[in-house]
């Protein structure tokens, strides 16, 4: 199981990253996790 749009998938959609990829990856994954918790909070009650 992975988050909805894992970084690997998203990375393929971005043609070029001129700066530090890690910064973008961490931010992307942080909000993927937040949205996972939000979605599943409506079942985990």
């Amino acid at each position, binding site marked *: 199981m992975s988050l909805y749009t894992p970084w690997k998938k998203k990375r393929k959609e971005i043609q070029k990253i001129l700066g530090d990829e890690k910064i973008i990856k961490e931010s992307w994954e942080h909000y993927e*996790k937040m949205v996972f918790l939000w979605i599943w909070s*409506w079942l*985990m009650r």
Partner: protein
Amino acid sequence: MQEVDGNLAVKKSPKELYNERVERITTATSLKTPDRVPIVLGFNISFIARYGGVTVQELMYNYEKRAEIIERLMKAFPEADAIGSGGTLSGPVSDALGQGLYEIPGRELSPDVSFQFIERCNMKSEEYDMFTENPTEFLITKYFPRIFREEWNKGLTRAKIAMMKGIFAHNDHRAFWGNKRKKWESEFGMPMARSSMTKAPFDVLSDTLRGMRESSIDMYKRPEKIIKACEALVPYCVMYAELPHTLRIKDESTRKEMKPQIGMPLHRGCVPFMSLKQFETFYWPTLKEVICRLVADGFICRPFAEGDWTMNMKYWREVPKGKVILKIDLADIFKAKELVGDTVCLQGNVPATLLQFGTPKQVEKYCKKLIDVVGEGGGFIMDGAVGIPGGAKIENIVAMTKFTAKYGVYRR
């Protein structure tokens, strides 16, 4: 309700208190004997409202007021080693989305009663495969439009705005209670009873997706579909419990860290909701899998066996030793001590009826029996059977905490 003077002649610093409380709970969890029996007070939102002289509706919207009353309760009951703050349902989030899972005090219900879950089927029998194949896709496209009344039915723009409002309101709620949690740990030395939560896969399916009636029928008509859906849910249940800890900013202080406790309310597993054979087929395998995975990842699980789990008690021998706190509601806790007391720490179970209608002497007598029998050799945490219910008499909570703090001492 009369305010309690908690006798704050406590000379210890918040850090000392926090460490002491964590040590007490951690030792009991690992089935050893702490300095005394730990006490957990899980305050029901109705109790918090009654203690503060406000309505439940007000507390569902006014987080600051609720936090202020909880702080008064922490001062009133300094013997508590961890507290629960009355649930996570928020009035603003509910309104923004028009959520239809609960009736809310002050909206569908009288302002002074607790919120009420609405039993409903939100997943059709022919949708099992879609859910099992991609649960997130199913939730977004099928489930949300059914449970959020501000959603699709009122047009796309309104639906999207509702979702945005709901997420803003959710973030406000999450940030507020996250900050309070840190404040209560650092200023009051008070740990929270649970750090995140999850559920048994079958309960996820039965509570909010299929509903009680349909999930009961499914056990006869489509057993394979239930099993596959529950298996598909396992990694989501684990991840839902673990993610808040990876997102939470690490505290830089040198306090002792309590292993994160995952609350797990168990709703429909016990007899008579299902037979033992059905329990073994549909409920237990995936619940046990979730628990074992969480324990392997370093968490403590705290399942709340709601209802009477006496007949299902033997299965708890199969979970990792000293890593599970089983919170007991109506089950025979004395029999549980015999059957599983060498495997799980037991928490409970001063009956709600006793806390509401009994006398302090009767409460003390029951607590004495709990300490003498269930507390023997450690592995026991004192708590109300359903936490502290809305109608609990304040003098009975005083009796429970003061008596346990005095009589429940193992060593000086």
